[in-house]
């Protein structure tokens, strides 16, 4: 239980690969999942986050601390989010979108999914299949038919490298 004093409460979060992280409760409760746990009285011990690995959790905590340090200024928060996500590769973004979803952090979820969408924009169908691990379940004839219907959308697509 959070004491009714002025001292900030610290929570301990545990990733699924058993890394421990300390984070201020005020920042951690950006996650509705964590907030619910705190409200249910789980805050005293270690909070296990079974769906997030240590690398991703470290990144999410950096975000939690960064964004909660910014006062209510949507412009500044937005530019912080943009900067925070600017150097992340696709795999990291994919891990973060899953973490944001599991932790129920709508602002991070919105920002990361928008960033992934932005990365995808000029990419080829092959790139998307590889990165998302999607199996092509069309028969060659079906695929050709769908492609033919939207032929013009295949113009100006980035060449198929892995970035």
């Amino acid at each position, binding site marked *: 239980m959070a004491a009714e004093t002025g001292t900030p409460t610290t929570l301990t979060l545990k990733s699924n690969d058993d890394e421990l992280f300390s984070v201020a409760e005020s920042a951690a409760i950006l996650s509705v999942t964590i907030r619910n746990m705190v409200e249910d009285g789980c805050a005293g011990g270690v909070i296990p986050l079974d769906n997030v690995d240590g690398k991703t959790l470290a990144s999410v905590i950096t975000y939690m601390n960064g964004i909660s340090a910014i006062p209510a200024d949507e412009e500044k928060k937005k530019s912080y989010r943009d900067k925070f996500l600017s150097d992340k590769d696709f795999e990291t973004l994919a*891990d973060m979108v899953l973490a944001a979803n599991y932790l129920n952090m709508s602002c991070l979820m919105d920002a990361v999914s928008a960033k992934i969408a932005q990365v995808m924009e000029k990419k080829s169908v092959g790139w998307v299949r590889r990165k998302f691990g999607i199996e092509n379940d069309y028969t060659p004839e079906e695929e050709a038919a769908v492609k033919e219907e939207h032929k013009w959308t295949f113009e100006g697509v980035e060449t198929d490298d892995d970035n």
Partner: protein
Amino acid sequence: MARKLAKTSSSNIPSEIIEIILSKLSSVKSLLRFKTVSKSWNIIISDPLFIQNHLHSSNSSPNNNLFLSKYPNSTDRGFPLVKFERGKFHAGGIFEENIPNGYNLILRECNGVLLLARRLSGWNKFDKYALWNPSTRWQRYIETPYDFSEYYVVDHGICYDKIAGDFKVVFIFVTKYAIYSCNNDSWTEKKLGAKCHDIGFTDSGIFVDGAIYWILGVQSTNISGRQLLYFDPRTDEIKRLQKPEQLRSLCLYCYKYNKEEKSFNIWIKEKGIDVAENNVVIKEQSIRFVCYSPTDDKTVKEFEVFAVHCGRYIPYRNSLYFPAGVKTKTIKA
């Protein structure tokens, strides 16, 4: 125990999250291309609810500030695209090609679907109509039962009935109106119960909150003068808007506000910096604009914007909407 190390977790992204990501991809061109990724991606991208969420998300995107000129450029074939920035329109070098053959005017817009007309050289007479979504490049010819040399069209409108998933095109004639349902590919005629005439360059016929609104001159036994009319696609009725409380409509307030003005335009502005979604912007005389927000403080605010011919432009939306059924690639001339 050794943890299984996946090369990437992205293959585990559940389809609900894929859907969220794709709805934020404003480029319709990319979405159409990604229909080829797999059957399940094709299903997501074709789903009406997805199409609705996608439009909502691209409407609220800060990058969404493009407008199409209703009139084609005289030198190039194409409707010029312009950017609305810092309260002004900036003409860009981009033109929207691939216009259905022979159509030279954008009349109305709804959810990114444009009602086009072929205007006969000279006055406000049209002889052919078509629907066109410039972002998907889908087009559809509308066959009309009317001989337009006999029938004078006072005004037009296009709307989307969310419940039925149907686009409807409305033609207002002097004493009657006709509704074309895209789903049924059929026309229905109804009586107006009054005489309507257009009052010149009002440029109304906008789609807001599920209905079409017009400002027209109306004459009947008990009313006359400028009136705000609306068409509700669920009942297929055209009605006169009387009280502000009657509908959650923003137009009425603006209409009242501008009652005494000699010239006005209703013009919806869902993009840009100053105006929130679903506000209506009214051109008052030539350079002053007012907007009214139904959700915020319910006041009419005056603001300074673009000085010229706001009625020239319609919002360019990244939209996957189009009437179900025939999506012709190219209309024959």
